[in-house]
């Protein structure tokens, strides 16, 4: 008998038409997002004469970080010409407390809503959800009046409060959904063991919430760091975030347009969210998936 029959057929080819299609699509998407980044980086490393040649995609002949240094320390952001480093620190000072407090608020809300089902919890949750869908431009004016009345308009505290308020619905939703995937018996066991509201929160629930907290940090850091409008309106002149200063550099109307400096300033501004994504991308996907399974 001829041994020409392989029991389970030939090994399936890995490269089917569908596969090629998928890879093609992925490659296109990657290029779509990578090309502007590439252009920005090479432009920021070129000198002005080279840029004027207009060859957008060419690699720099003589790469130099001069434009980066200038963007950081000397570029004019309106009246002063100290670069965007002041804005960078302003952004840090705004972002850190805003992220920390908005996440804490969201986690506590979500915890109270999913484990301590108090009377009216569902209504509170519905209102919060509604809040997530209100376009924030609508409430800016009343918010300005409110902060002015309590004397916090144009202060660091004011802008942090604003970020907390706008972050609360989505943070609450995120944490509530994650918590409802934790076993309820765990919470009951802790109550029988005598732990109170805060002890259960800090000792039982939060240690189990690392993935969702990472997601929250990413969402909030990028959101708040990239914010322009709220910073411009509420932060006050001394606390203007980096994005506002970047805008000032880019839209300066006198002198030559220094494209390399603009590009460098933009890159500097984008570095923080970029770094956060690169460092924690794995957790990001995991946490989103974990929260999505049960809601």
């Amino acid at each position, binding site marked *: 008998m001829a041994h020409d029959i392989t029991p389970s057929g030939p090994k399936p080819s890995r490269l089917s038409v569908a596969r090629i299609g998928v890879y093609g699509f992925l490659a296109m998407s990657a290029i779509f997002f990578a090309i502007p980044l590439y252009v920005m980086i090479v432009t920021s490393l070129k000198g002005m004469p080279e840029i004027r040649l207009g060859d957008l995609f060419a690699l720099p002949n003589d790469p130099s970080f001069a434009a980066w240094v200038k963007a950081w320390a000397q570029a004019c952001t309106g009246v002063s010409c100290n670069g965007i480093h002041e804005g960078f620190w302003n952004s840090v000072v705004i972002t850190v407390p805003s992220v920390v407090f908005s996440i804490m608020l969201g986690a506590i809300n979500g915890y109270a809503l999913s484990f301590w089902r108090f009377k009216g919890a569902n209504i509170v949750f519905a209102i919060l959800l509604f809040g997530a869908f209100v376009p924030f431009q609508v409430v800016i004016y009343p918010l300005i009046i409110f902060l002015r009345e309590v004397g916090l308009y144009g202060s660091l505290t004011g802008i942090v409060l604003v970020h907390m308020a706008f972050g609360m619905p989505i943070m609450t939703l995120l944490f509530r959904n994650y918590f409802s995937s934790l076993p309820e018996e*765990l919470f*009951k*066991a*802790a*109550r029988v*063991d*005598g732990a109170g509201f805060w002890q259960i929160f800090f000792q039982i629930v939060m240690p189990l919430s690392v993935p969702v907290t990472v997601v929250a940090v990413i969402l909030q850091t990028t959101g708040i760091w990239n914010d322009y409008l709220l910073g411009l309106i509420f932060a006050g002149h001394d606390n203007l975030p980096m994005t506002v200063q970047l805008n000032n550099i880019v839209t300066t109307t006198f002198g030559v347009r220094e494209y390399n400096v603009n590009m460098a300033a933009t890159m500097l501004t984008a570095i923080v969210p970029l770094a956060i994504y690169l460092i924690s991308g794995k957790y990001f996907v995991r946490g989103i998936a974990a929260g999505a399974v049960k809601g």
Partner: protein
Amino acid sequence: MHSVSIKNLDLMFDQVPVLQNLNLDIEKGEFLVLLGSSGCGKSTLLNCIAGLLDVSAGQIWINDRNVTWEEPKDRDIGMVFQSYALYPQMTVEKNLSFGLRVKGVDKEEIARRVANAAKVLQIEALLQRKPAELSGGQRQRVAIGRALVRDVEVFLFDEPLSNLDAKLRADLRIEIKRLHQKLKNTMVYVTHDQVEALTLADRIAIMKNGVIQQLSSPDDIYHTPNNLFVAGFIGSPSMNFLHGSCENGVFTCQKTGHKDVVIDLSRYPFKEAMSKKTSMILGIRPEHLILVEQQQDVPFSVEVQVDIIEPMGSETVVWFELQGQSYALRLHTENHIQVGSTITIGFDPVKAHCFDSATEQRL
């Protein structure tokens, strides 16, 4: 003095009553098992005792103290959950000591109690492991240990063994019984496994739709079930029931196209004498049916055909047909019976159970 006393308890979930006017007294040191099918409210009752659910009406007393509105921690109870509910991020030792640490017990006392519990439950070697690194049986031991270290008066178990395989379940069952004999605490144990209930309990409360059907010793429940539900619930395979009527101490079961079954019940201990003809259900356990060749002198016997045989090691369950319905008979394996053969079976009416068809109560 009652260890746990439940008085006129009502519980509703969004207007849906789950427990209604429930009364239950549990003696000090008693092992009480709550037995019932899925969804009958066993866990709900246990959660009420623990204080994890707010009751709608009624009172709960523990150790002669009204604890209806007290927090779980103030009720002197420990609870073991079906899913173990160990804190995943803590080692076994930290799991055991969590309750004590929260309470602010001093370090030496904690160490002493943890060591003691670990010794009793034989988990000393596991103290530094995380729950994920334990087997199911070990996790369950840790869960019991968590209640043990707190030195409570009442232990509440919610189906603690139902996630384990049959062998381990049997082993841990004995360990829990041993633990109870040693500690002499009050234990309330929820299960839907009747073997667990019969082997562990001092008393069993059989529940159906949030109502306790019968509360008595395992022996009582098995030998004199109060009503049709209890009779059918306990025993495996479950009791055989014949629907018929009774007049002048004679039970008759008629069915068109079949021979009448007539059983003389003059030896049956009726609760009260029946004056008129009553519609009745007669029950007999498969293990109380006998093969008549062996023991000729039986008040009732009938010839039947063997349908199916289920060998179960030491015993065999024989299914046969009578008046077009299927019934079971439990025999020792030595009786070699063939499918399709005709056998004569019978029983002593003293061992039968009679229930009123309308009220389903025992007669």
